């Protein structure tokens, strides 16, 4: 640090700034899209931050009609968009195009004064998170997708923890014939591409009556995660001293109490970390869900399909993506110290 000359310092500052910009700018624009209304999505150039307000110009017309004008910001000023006497037309226009959830009657009440004062500009506050609400309303299976994703993640965590921690305990605590071979086998299963089993898994799950079910899907997600859980927990079980468990037994605790009061609390960080890995596998996957489900889609699959069906409403897909990203982001950061170990034994 002390040996750095000003040149080097400047260079490092530039590199850091450049890297952060490269990472942050796409994220900002993307978040902006998720909070944009249709007008902003179709406008160009794009804003780094989505606006929170919408301004329209209202011109009163004969027969109880109002004419609505909007400025696209392309320099051509206000353009006529809609002329109508019906409140419902404006209500749906405001919701769909401007991201403003307001009743048509309220709009007409506001515009009443243009009858006397002539055309005026009105500014409305965008309804916050309207794209998120719309995502669950408009995109097929979105709400059930979120529920399914949570369910399948829970199943995957339970299955992986149960099978994996048994294995981890056996590998850590016993020296037995074939131990090394089992370690190698677990590594192979962990690295094995899921796509290599998911097509034929469909046949198996149909036979078992688990096709298009979250339990069936969890069975395939657990394949790499059981091996991973064994691996993570075995390294922790090695560290928990056997003497402590024995002492607890001598002091009269039964094996269940010992497990509950001594072993489990000490092993908890490892169990939590492997649970989060299981969660991420189930939460982030799309290919297995595509192959093994039909009606019961997961959220990741719903977002994948949303891009094909609602090309006009990419802001809804973007909002859905943010719902998808947040839990994954939180869990990844919680387990980041394990990621380094996963990727080759470095501490983060």
């Amino acid at each position: 640090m002390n040996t750095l000359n000003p040149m080097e310092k400047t260079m490092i500052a530039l590199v850091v700034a450049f890297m952060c910009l490269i990472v942050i700018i796409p994220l900002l624009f993307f978040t902006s899209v998720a909070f944009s209304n249709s007008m902003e999505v179709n406008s160009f150039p794009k804003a780094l931050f989505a606006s929170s307000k919408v301004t329209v110009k209202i011109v009163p017309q004969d027969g109880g009609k109002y004419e609505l004008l909007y400025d696209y910001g392309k320099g051509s000023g206000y353009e006529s968009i809609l002329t109508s006497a019906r409140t419902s037309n404006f209500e749906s226009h405001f919701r769909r195009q401007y991201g403003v959830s307001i009743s048509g009657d309220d709009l007409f009440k506001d515009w009443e004064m243009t009858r006397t004062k002539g055309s005026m500009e009105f500014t409305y506050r965008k309804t916050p998170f309207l794209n998120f609400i719309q995502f669950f309303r408009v995109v097929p299976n979105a709400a059930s997708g979120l529920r399914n994703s949570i369910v399948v993640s829970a199943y995957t965590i339970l299955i992986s923890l149960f099978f994996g921690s048994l294995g981890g305990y056996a590998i850590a605590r016993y020296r037995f014939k074939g131990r090394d071979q089992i370690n190698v086998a677990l590594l192979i299963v962990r690295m094995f591409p899921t796509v290599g089993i998911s097509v034929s898994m469909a046949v198996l799950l149909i036979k078992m009556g688990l096709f298009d079910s979250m339990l069936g899907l969890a069975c395939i997600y657990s394949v790499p995660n059981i091996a991973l859980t064994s691996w993570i927990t075995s390294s922790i079980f090695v560290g928990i001293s056997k003497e402590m468990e024995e002492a607890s037994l001598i002091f009269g605790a039964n094996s269940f109490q010992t497990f509950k009061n001594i072993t489990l609390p000490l092993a908890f960080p490892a169990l939590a970390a492997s649970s989060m890995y299981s969660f991420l596998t189930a939460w982030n996957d799309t290919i297995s869900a595509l192959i093994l489900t039909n009606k019961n889609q997961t959220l990741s699959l719903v977002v994948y399909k949303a891009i094909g069906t609602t090309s006009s409403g990419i802001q809804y897909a973007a909002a859905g993506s943010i719902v998808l990203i947040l839990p994954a982001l939180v869990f990844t950061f919680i387990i980041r110290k394990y990621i380094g170990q996963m990727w080759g034994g470095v501490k983060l």
Partner: protein
Amino acid sequence: MIHTISNRNRFRIPKKAVPYILLAPIFIYYIIFWLIPVLTNVKEVFTDFDGHFTLLGNFKFMAENELFKQSVRNTALFAFVSVILEYLVALLLAVVLNISFPGNRAMMFISMIPMAITPTATAILWKTGLMSDGWINTVLLNLHLVDKGFIYMNAEGLNAVGMLILIDAWTVTPSVMVILIAGLQGLQKDQKEAAYLFGATKLQIFRDVTIPTLRPSITTSIITRMIAAIQVWSISVMVLGYGKAPFLVERVAFYIEEIPGVETSSKLAYTYSFFTTVVVLIATIFYLRISERNARNQA
């Protein structure tokens, strides 16, 4: 009390059997949910539509498929170029930034974000940018780098693969950098100092001390990355659509999603997924061999 103890002893499981009993559930699980699907897949790949054995029939069928060659080329290109690009850039960044400076931790934190984003969400993120009125053109025009926005979505062939490689690089490179920095910080300082004392140059230290120390962590992480890169598909489909930049797993998804329920398409899905698995296994073994040989040569 005594009675129960003796009772318990009578049913005691021999100690040697305990680990096998603990491992039995895993064993059974993997027979059902791993071995059976793997064997089913193998069986499907080596039988024809009438259920007769065929050694190469399905592979020929797959190879005649118009997008097969492209998908193999694209997958190889993507896996190879993206991994090399990401690791070189990340290594460079890691070496430059392997010092403590204000905001160090914040930068590390920011760098980890892209990798944590679900792949389907990453695809939508970049789709919003790559649209002709998207934010990438906005940035390029604002910086006056171009006079007119590009149309990215029509990219085909190698351009499309290149574009996907860049997206992947955005996702992966910062995290690899963080991992390499962590590896570098674990490096023994005295090793470096000793090398200095013996008159080694910075480059020599980098080659003979830094790289060998990092090798174990680089090896594991490159294999993990390579396996993931070979299985790329959702970004290609979501950004460009099916068939624009075909990949091996993209073909599996195509036959499952776009032509479901047809005998030929399920056969092709089996064959493609088998082929992908074999490619992953070969690539892993190949990489391990090379890195072992390099390690030996260095020693």
